[in-house]
């Protein structure tokens, strides 16, 4: 590392100059100029994944104008970029691409981790099976800017900090390419264990930090702090009545029962129109149908002149531990009512006919369910994983999914 990767001339010129009288000063001056140039000409890569990218764009906008620092030449190709601002969450699938991007940037290159996600995974640190816990697990980070997302001023401050750092570069402190850490998840289990073990230790051990002598004011006779007086009293408010334009649940259910008498109301003891009426107007009509009538039922809902449910909201699934339930949620764009059609599946070999002949939009929804639950859809035109890499082990939204190599569990 280090000198080997510095250009031939850059390596030899100082050696020639330094023994000469005043040579060291000349080299210092040259180094100063080069470092100054580098610090003031940071061209960022246009890289942004999530919310922080918006604040990065704000920083580039007229109000904050990062052009003042010479940063506005944002390049779309890594070959011309000096700086990569990790704006947003980095997930496993993107992680390898991020490493590629970083390696494709010419040296010297710098990295700013902007926001909690890029520093540590932020809100997705716990329980997420795909988020990489910080950009520095992949590539060397120079400056960390906390916040979620940080203000544009905070990003500017971060850039200034980076400039400070670059200005110290020279032959004594050359820019070095950091080590690329190719273990995006590290060992979260043992890491988490260590963190929480440490925490537990300090929880039980008497704190060495403050003895009563040091903080004399925490005397035993100090009264316990009182609860904040409840200045704000919030009234209980009645709910606004539902607007009347939509078709009511009773009519819909009566119409369905007429054609599909085997339909049942989920989680209800009775399956009658009266029962639906008793549940009130805000009740989400939640129907269970047998597997063999599922597609038929959805087709009926779509084509019925009365119901006219021509809008597929989503297809999803719920893991009930003993079975899967696939849900198709339909909406009538004309009349505003929506129905949940539910179908129980065997958990061992979950397979259900696809809705894609009825709704083109179902293709992706079903791919998502296939990806996250492992439920197969027969006669689906393109059943591939949607979000995760093909080699991802397991199906994360199943309740029994556990992957200690990826997921950090919350200790409480």
């Amino acid at each position, binding site marked *: 590392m280090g000198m080997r*990767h510095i250009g031939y*001339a*850059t390596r030899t010129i100082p050696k020639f100059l330094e023994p000469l009288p005043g040579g060291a000063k000349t080299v210092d001056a040259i180094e100063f100029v080069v470092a100054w140039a580098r610090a003031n000409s940071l061209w960022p890569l246009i890289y942004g994944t999530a919310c922080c990218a918006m604040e990065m764009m704000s920083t580039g906008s007229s109000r904050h104008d990062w052009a003042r620092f010479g940063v506005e030449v944002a390049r779309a*190709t890594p070959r011309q970029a000096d700086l990569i601002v990790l704006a947003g969450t980095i997930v496993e699938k993107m992680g390898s*691409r991020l490493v590629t991007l970083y390696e*494709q940037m010419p040296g010297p290159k710098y990295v700013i981790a902007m926001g909690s996600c890029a520093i540590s995974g932020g809100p997705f640190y716990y329980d997420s099976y795909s988020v990489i816990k910080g950009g520095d697990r992949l590539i060397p980070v120079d400056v960390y800017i906390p916040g979620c997302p940080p203000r544009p001023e905070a990003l500017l401050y971060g850039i200034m900090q980076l400039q400070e750092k670059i200005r110290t570069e020279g032959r004594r402190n050359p*820019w070095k*390419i950091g080590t690329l850490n190719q273990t995006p998840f590290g060992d979260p289990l043992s890491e988490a264990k260590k963190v929480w073990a440490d925490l537990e230790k300090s929880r039980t051990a008497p704190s060495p930090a403050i003895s009563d002598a040091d903080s004399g004011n925490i005397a035993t006779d100090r009264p316990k702090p009182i609860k904040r007086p409840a200045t704000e009293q919030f009234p209980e408010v009645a709910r606004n009545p539902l607007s009347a334009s939509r078709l009511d649940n009773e009519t819909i259910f009566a119409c369905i029962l007429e054609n599909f008498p085997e339909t049942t109301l989920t989680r209800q003891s009775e399956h009658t129109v009266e029962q639906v009426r008793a549940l009130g107007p805000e009740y989400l009509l939640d129907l269970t149908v047998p597997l063999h009538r599922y597609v038929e039922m959805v087709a009926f809902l779509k084509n019925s002149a009365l119901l006219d449910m021509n809008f597929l909201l989503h297809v999803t699934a719920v893991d009930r531990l003993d079975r899967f339930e696939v849900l198709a949620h339909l909406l009538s764009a004309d009349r505003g009512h929506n129905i949940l059609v539910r179908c129980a599946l065997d958990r061992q070999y979950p397979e259900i006919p696809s809705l894609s002949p009825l709704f083109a939009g179902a293709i992706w929804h079903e791919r998502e369910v296939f990806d996250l639950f492992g439920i197969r859809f027969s006669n689906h035109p393109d059943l591939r994983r949607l979000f995760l890499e093909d080699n991802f082990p397991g199906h994360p939204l199943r309740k029994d999914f556990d992957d200690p190599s990826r997921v950090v569990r919350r200790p409480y």
Partner: protein
Amino acid sequence: MASYTIIGFAIFLGALFVGGGILASMLLAFRTPHCSNKVQAYECAEDPVGDARIRFKVSYYLFALLFLIFDIESLFLFPCVKIFRTVATQATALSPTFLLGELSVFVFILFSGLLYVWKKGVLRWE
């Protein structure tokens, strides 16, 4: 001819300037360690599918051919326009109307060529 010698000399110096710049930079610049990602062609950080040296749509080349025709034709126009003013403003045997007619014929031939390719749909970018 002398003026073109100067230009040749200028080109040489210019190329030296640019090439020297690149060479100097190569001596001065950093070099990060070689790895397979680094030298891979940039295609939005993904592995490219297939070769980049693809057989390309013919429409681009049609424009190149058109250019060749029209550029050369307009160069043929060059002597015509060069002496046009001299001839037109001096009392010569040629009448101004004839001159204008001559220019029109020249331009018309070019224009009809353009109309032809237009009609043929060469200009439609598919």
